[in-house]
């Protein structure tokens, strides 16, 4: 009996491309192009998706502001309230807020002006108030609010009602194709499985997972394992990958296999020369993803890319129970990881060309769930980080924490967003080079909102 373990499997799947060159003819890219040593105008967007719905109420807390004070927060949060003395103070003009106590690194980044906070942003069809929400009019209220899968799709597609087949990251990459002419690698990379965000109409992402613990290599990308020391499996597979019986799904699957093999072969060798010296925290899954992102960015010239988009999935933040302990650990990992990543972009000399931002399918209720946690809600606070960020201040409108206020959809502190995902994304897209005229291609409902640029990027 042959006993195989997960470790055996992983060992097999991370064999290097060099040893597995039998399928090299499958590569779509062929020989690498030669590129100049420098590429003017390099820019990158990194989306950190806080899966599960991060609790923004305990991430950014009003301490003493013209609008409200800590006591109002504590009243709404009840047993989930963080002690005021533990909060990490940050200023927004004359207002004092506090970051979660496990985020000292992000406090530093904010105070240095390299990180901004966008308050109460979320999924919107158009600006809406409490009466509008209660109208249940699907023409103005996003569909399937509070559902993880639906809201993740809507966040990533920027299409708040209807079924989408691609996302705003992919559509941005579609529009920036001319900046990546001659590239030998996709402009979008995800380090874990990506939902709609990474797929465009013409752009498909590469998955570049972090290295597998205990195994060599700069990534965990797999290449096709040689079979039976024979050429016939390779030849047969090649024929089948070209097999066209008219079924679109089969063709789509064939394309994915070919891309997977091609991407791994292109990147694996290049990353052997990557030498990021910035220390990243260990045992931190987001840090591992962001180190991989930094490594891929370090070979951007060889890849022929002047515009790159990355997607990191991190969580789960779905804290219906044990929220205080769970979120403390996750936000600590987030804070430490983004600090290290910012350091890596400085090391690479591209800090001002890289903008990192957070997203999450929804926020959570201010009012506790009754099981030491909070429930699915709507609007949320997010972070934007990078050398190009006009940081050290808030954007958007911080909501009232009065239960049942005009900002509250259902008397539990379910924030009705006052800034739309489309506005958030459009600001990032414009910085990335998307023209105003093309914004509606990426964000179909951007015209429903007063401003398409929130101003947090220079």
């Amino acid at each position, binding site marked *: 009996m*042959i006993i195989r373990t*997960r470790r055996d*499997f992983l060992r*097999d799947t991370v064999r290097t491309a060099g040893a597995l060159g039998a399928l090299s003819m499958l590569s779509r890219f062929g020989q690498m192009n030669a590129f100049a040593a420098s590429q003017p105008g390099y820019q990158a967007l990194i989306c950190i998706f806080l899966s599960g719905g991060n609790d923004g109420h305990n991430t950014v807390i009003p301490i003493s502001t013209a609008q409200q004070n800590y006591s109002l927060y504590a009243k709404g949060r009840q047993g989930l309230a963080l002690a005021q003395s533990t909060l990490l103070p940050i200023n927004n003009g004359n207002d004092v807020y506090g970051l979660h106590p496990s985020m000292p690194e992000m406090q530093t980044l904010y105070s240095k002006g390299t990180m901004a906070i966008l308050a109460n942003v979320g999924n919107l069809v158009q600006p809406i108030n409490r009466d509008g929400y209660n109208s249940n009019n699907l023409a103005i209220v996003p569909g399937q609010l509070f559902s993880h899968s639906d809201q993740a*799709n809507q966040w990533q597609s920027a299409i708040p009602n209807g079924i989408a087949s691609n996302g705003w990251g992919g559509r941005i990459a579609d529009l920036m194709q001319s900046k990546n002419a001659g590239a030998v690698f996709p402009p979008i990379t995800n380090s874990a499985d990506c939902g709609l965000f990474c797929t465009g109409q013409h752009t498909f992402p590469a998955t570049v997972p972090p290295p597998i613990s205990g195994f060599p290599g700069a990534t965990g990308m797999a290449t096709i394992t040689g*079979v039976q020391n024979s050429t016939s499996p390779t030849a047969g597979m090649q024929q089948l990958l070209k097999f066209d*019986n008219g079924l679109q799904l*089969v063709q789509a699957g064939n394309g*994915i296999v070919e891309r997977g093999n091609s991407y791994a072969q292109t990147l694996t060798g290049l990353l052997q020369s990557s030498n990021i010296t910035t220390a990243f925290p260990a045992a931190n899954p987001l840090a591992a993803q962001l180190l991989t992102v930094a490594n891929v960015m370090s070979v951007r010239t060889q890849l022929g890319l002047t515009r790159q988009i990355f997607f990191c999935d991190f969580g789960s933040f779905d804290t219906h129970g044990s929220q205080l302990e769970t979120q403390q650990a996750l936000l600590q990992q987030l804070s430490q990881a983004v600090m290290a990543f910012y350091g890596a972009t400085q090391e690479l000399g591209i800090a001002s060309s890289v903008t990192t931002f957070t997203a999450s399918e929804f926020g959570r209720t201010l009012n506790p769930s009754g099981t030491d946690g909070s429930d699915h809600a709507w609007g949320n606070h997010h972070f934007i980080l990078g050398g190009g960020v006009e940081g050290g201040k808030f954007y958007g409108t911080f909501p009232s924490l009065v239960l049942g206020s005009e900002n509250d959809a259902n008397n539990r502190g379910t924030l009705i967003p006052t800034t739309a995902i489309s506005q958030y994304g459009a600001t990032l897209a414009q910085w990335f080079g998307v023209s105003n005229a093309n914004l509606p291609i990426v964000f179909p409902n951007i015209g429903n909102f007063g401003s398409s640029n929130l101003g947090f990027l220079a």
Partner: protein
Amino acid sequence: MAGMVRAFGGLMTNQNYFSTDMEQDVFTPASVFNYYEPDYGVPGTTLMGGEFQIFSPNNAILRTNEVSNLFSQWGSSVQTYGPGTTIDLTLFLPLAANPTTLVDALDLTLTHGVMPAAMKTAIVNAVAANTDGNLRQVQLGCYLILTSNYYNVWH
């Protein structure tokens, strides 16, 4: 993975090592929504195909290699992969003398006897070109069918 194993007499239990190799343990999905959404749009098409959400380029290669590990590497026609799970290719060995007959049998076993002619021809040719013995020929036939996207989509 479950379908592949069951086609050759194996069982899928929570004791199978390979049930977690793809990080999609059949019995312990991360959420009530399982591993993918039914309305996921297939990249490059206007079709919906939920399974494609987890069929990323890298996962596609991992899956190919998993098939290789399960069906193409070993020196015995009977392999056990954990309690209750045995993949047995013995019945197919005598059929390898005629690659067309072998592939017809695998077609009935894996693709319900409706494999497209061009696909079958490609596999028969590959099996016929393999001179490493009947076990390797059977394994190769299984490997090519099970790694094909025709099989993926069918199942």
